[in-house]
């Protein structure tokens, strides 16, 4: 499954967003993660914000299925479980 990834712009992130993605890539085996670009179609989209505002824009991406969001490092284990079940 192809999962697009969109980061917020990182003005004041409360955790290392890039590191979180690398951890998800390592532990989630049923998805190929790639930085989302316009014009491509994705099975899933993962939006990673640096704070609870999670202000990343993503409406312009073509996504067939669920959109996942992560904005706090404490959510990462639950997210990985959810992604692995998807």
């Amino acid at each position, binding site marked *: 499954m192809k999962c697009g990834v969109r*980061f*917020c*712009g990182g*003005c004041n992130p409360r955790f290392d967003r890039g590191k979180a993605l690398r951890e998800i890539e390592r532990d989630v085996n049923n998805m190929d993660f790639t*930085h989302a670009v316009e014009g491509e179609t994705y099975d899933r989209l993962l939006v990673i914000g640096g704070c609870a505002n999670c*202000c*990343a*824009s993503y409406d312009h991406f073509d996504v067939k299925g669920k959109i996942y969001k992560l904005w706090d490092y404490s959510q990462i284990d639950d997210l990985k479980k959810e992604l692995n079940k998807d």
Partner: protein
Amino acid sequence: MLMTGAQYIESLRKMKTRVYMFGEEVKDWVDHPIIRPSINCVAITYDLAHDPEYADLMTAKSNLTGETVNRFSHLHQSTEDLKKKVKMQRLCGQKTASCFQRCVGMDAFNAVFSTTYETDKKYGTNYHENFKNFLKMVQEKDYVVDGAMTDPKGDRGLAPSAQRDPDLFMHIVERREDGIVVRGAKAHQTGTINSHWHIVMPTQAMKEADKDYAVSFACPSDAEGMYMIYGRQSCDTRKLEEGADVDLGNKQFGGQEALVVFDNVFIPNEYIFLAGEYDFAGMMVERFAGYHRQSYGGCKVGVGDVLIGAAALAAEYNGAQKASHIKDKLIEMIHLNETLYCCGIACSSEGHPTLAGNYEIDLLLANVCKQNVTRFPYDITRLAEDIAGGLMVTMPSEKDFKSDLKVGRNGETIGDICNKYFAAAPSCTTEERMRILRFIENICLGSSAVGYRTESLHGAGSPQAQRIMISRQGNLEGKKELAKAIVGIK
């Protein structure tokens, strides 16, 4: 096309911009050690746009072309865009701890776009189309543009047309069939040498007698008749010292200001955005100032973030991080810094569309934002210096720390002695302690203090300019009515 930082630096090499410093022409200004940190700073605005972790802030979709452009050349299309502008500026401040210079162009684009629309509506001129065509070119080429507003102004008590020397305000000296010739200068120009183009705007509201001074246009930075005299910064010649590193505080990045002279520069008609319609000079100034006062609620906050981090490290290196007064001072610094950010976000959230369609900020809140910026960075630097201790301004030079000259009774070198007596907590080396203290010095009173302190006071207008706007926008009469209604006064 989004350039990379390296492509941007290469593009500057193709410019024939005339630069003078210390009384001499600087030919290889791109690689000059005093200038280069400021170029690196602008280059960051290009590189971050290519990084997926920052692209959401650093890029936007152009309403003119539909293409992805650097947000620094974007016309704000919503309050969300206005907020993202502030967040982008905070990010760039965090990455450079300096003035990254590209905001003035962005703020000029948004001010000139809406003002030309309204000028054309009244006078049937073609300025808005001129400007749109210019901006499309800027977006496509991913250029840096200096927004040049501040004239030298001469005798502050006199109008532009009443000055002893007419060149103290930028003015039209000749009108031709195919364009105008302008003469004058713009002072304190941030990033001017690092810009591919300039947008010139009037410096204040004008009356009919000053109509030749009500002029706005764009021109390339290497236009014939144009040259720049570099502004000195505190401690700038440290950058000329051989092998300088630690003593610079921030070796990689810095800001830049210069005097830009327009010595009879010809401006073709297609690059003119105002030429005599004096009643719109004030609108252009007010809108640019509004956007620029919003900007400071982002860029200075980003630099503040780094300074707070540096102060916290200095406390750790001094072994004082557990002291309650140190913790409290760091909290106060964060509180002041985030208050500035609140103002930047608030004036953006309360933004509204102009008649031309782009969004502008809430003017009252933007002026409150900048008024706070004239104060809080001074408080933050005071606290940073308090935490750092006097060593940040009394310690020997980097060369002393590295010196092999034997001076001690037992053959100790100057370096040995410096490292012995300036060692502190075991969590850091003496060099690390030096580095963080020199970095704090750089922001508080070295070359970056130009951007973080005095620019916070005078940039985008001195404190009194904001107080005038706060007075105009503050709705004092409405507040009186509120009081009357509650106490029963009719």
